[in-house]
């Protein structure tokens, strides 16, 4: 066992922290309130290599380990989860899948620009009738010999409008059920694709969440990821890694809110002393700090397993479940510690509380994580 980070991991954490303080903190309240997509911020994030930090150097990525990724996700999420969700989806859902299962041509053509952050990727799995239940895909990719013909609607797509590259999960052979599902790389400007209106969300309001409609979209055969019928497995594998990203995001939301609450409790006075000197507040902070530390260990453990090439699906489900629940609880307490100030936007904690809610829902709800965890118990 070794609980020390390397010099490099700490440098990445500090770089992410500096970036968040310098580039994300100014304007985060306005971007949230008016649901303004963080175009400039995402561009700079890409230039620094955060959007492709997990991709290997050969494909223009940062070649960093997953531990570093957890640290960076935490720092960025402390300030702006609308940005960190774009980073998480691009890194751990889209780039990871193409790097792991794509062929050389696909990597050259699609992975490299995404790893450089020049193009953004989106992962299209959820459907109006199929959120967590990925086996019942209504979107179809009919094999037309030299291409697939794509029809259907995908919902709740992060970066739905800003992405240039989609990974679309669709049913090709309904008779084979989930073994007939394919994963396709689809260029977002293909003919027949239309993007629905911006979802007016409760939290993470600055990220662009849209539905995407496919109407007779031709997808070249060479854009199939992996073998024919590999799509469902591909999606499940991608989500295993994606959960580390979202768990780290939830961790960051929690620790961001905790840091603000701790600072506030040391400054704000009530009944003649700083409120941190009242046990009611001190104990809240003690609980928050302890749970955040536990969530951090979950995230780092899952990341470590992934870096070691060991199975990490079970650990990442635990990390996501625990970190998301912690984020919700800690942010709620942070608002409570701030009292009336916590309920106004200027103090940031109400935004973190709204953002936290989404971590319990997307990339597998907390309930789905429990299914994954419980199934893993009896294997």
């Amino acid at each position, binding site marked *: 066992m070794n609980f020390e980070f390397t*010099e490099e991991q700490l440098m990445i954490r500090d770089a992410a922290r500096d970036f968040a303080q310098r580039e994300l903190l100014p304007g985060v309240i306005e971007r949230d309130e008016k649901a303004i997509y963080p175009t400039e911020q995402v561009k700079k994030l890409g*230039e*620094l290599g955060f959007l*492709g930090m997990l991709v290997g150097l050969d494909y223009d990525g*940062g070649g960093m380990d997953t531990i570093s990724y957890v640290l960076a996700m935490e720092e960025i999420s402390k300030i702006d989860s609308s940005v960190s969700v774009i980073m998480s989806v691009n890194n751990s859902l889209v780039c990871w899948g193409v790097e792991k299962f794509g062929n050389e041509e696909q990597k050259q053509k699609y992975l490299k620009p995404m790893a450089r952050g020049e193009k953004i990727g989106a992962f299209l799995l959820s459907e109006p009738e199929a959120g967590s239940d990925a086996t019942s895909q209504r979107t179809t990719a009919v094999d037309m010999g030299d291409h697939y013909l794509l029809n259907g609607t995908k919902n709740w797509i992060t970066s739905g409008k800003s992405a240039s590259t989609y990974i679309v999960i669709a049913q090709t052979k309904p008779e084979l059920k989930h073994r007939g599902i394919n994963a396709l790389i689809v260029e977002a400007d293909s003919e027949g694709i239309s993007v629905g209106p911006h979802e007016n969300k409760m939290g993470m309001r600055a990220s662009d969440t849209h539905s995407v409609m496919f109407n007779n979209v031709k997808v070249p055969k060479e854009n199939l990821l992996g073998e024919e019928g590999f799509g469902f497995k591909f999606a499940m594998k991608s989500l295993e890694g994606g959960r580390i990203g979202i768990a780290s995001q939830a961790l960051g939301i929690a620790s961001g809110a905790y840091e603000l609450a701790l600072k506030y409790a040391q400054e704000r006075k009530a009944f003649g002393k700083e409120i941190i000197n009242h046990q009611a507040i001190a104990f809240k902070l003690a609980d928050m700090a302890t749970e955040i530390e536990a969530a951090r260990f979950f995230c780092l453990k899952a990341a470590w397993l992934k870096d070691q090439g060991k199975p990490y699906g079970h650990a990442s489900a635990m990390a996501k479940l625990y970190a998301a629940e912690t984020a919700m609880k800690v942010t709620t307490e942070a608002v409570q510690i701030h009292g009336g100030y916590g309920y106004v936007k200027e103090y940031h904690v109400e935004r973190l509380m709204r953002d936290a809610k989404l971590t319990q829902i997307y990339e597998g709800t907390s309930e789905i994580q429990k299914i994954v965890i419980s199934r893993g118990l009896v294997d």
Partner: protein
Amino acid sequence: MKILVCISNVPDTTTKVKFKEGDSLFDDSGVQWIINPWDELALTRALELKEDAGNSVNEICVIHVGGAGADATLRKALAIGADKAVRIDACPADAYHVAGQIAEFLKENPFDIVFSGIESSDYNGSSVGAMIAEFMDYPGISSVTAVNLDDDDIQLSRAIPGGKQVLKTETPFVAVVQKGIANEPRIPSMRGIMMARKKPLEVKAAAEMDVLTKSVKFELPAEKGACKMIESESAEQLVDLLKNEAKVL
């Protein structure tokens, strides 16, 4: 053309300072270390000069006098773009000692331009750069707010009270730089961090050098009295207080 940038390793500017051993030593437990902000600006300008094709700057080296604890800071300098780092393995006892060590290095390894920040945010000595210039008998320009190399023709601006002077000089020289010299310091990119792994960080033995001063004690400033709050409608009251109570008008 080669630029040497002197780097000091200092506690993060938001650090709450504490002392230990009877207030004789700075308590560095839990301290986050950073590149001294002025040195970081100097490094940023050096990197900008290297990237500019209009001059012949082709190597940026950073140098630090201190223990292995500063290696992370030097590695960061490499990650944001310095080509190599040198650490003189000595306890940085005072400005004379530090400047002397760097001068000894310079005698063996000549550079065209030496950059140093105008002060360090820990002991606020503000003397290392000019001392190096004197040890080396180089021209030294202090309070530098701009360095431009056009076809290696050197122009610097320095702050003077209420204005600035534009100067011309020749290499080798020492520029002691302050705010304004460069834009924002850089954040290391993932690629930069990766490349820093392969860049040289050379550790050199210290030279014999005298130490002329020593820090003997620290104290924290007296607590400030409470702020007297005045209603926003009562501007006259404030004027009266400034005149008759604070006596500063």
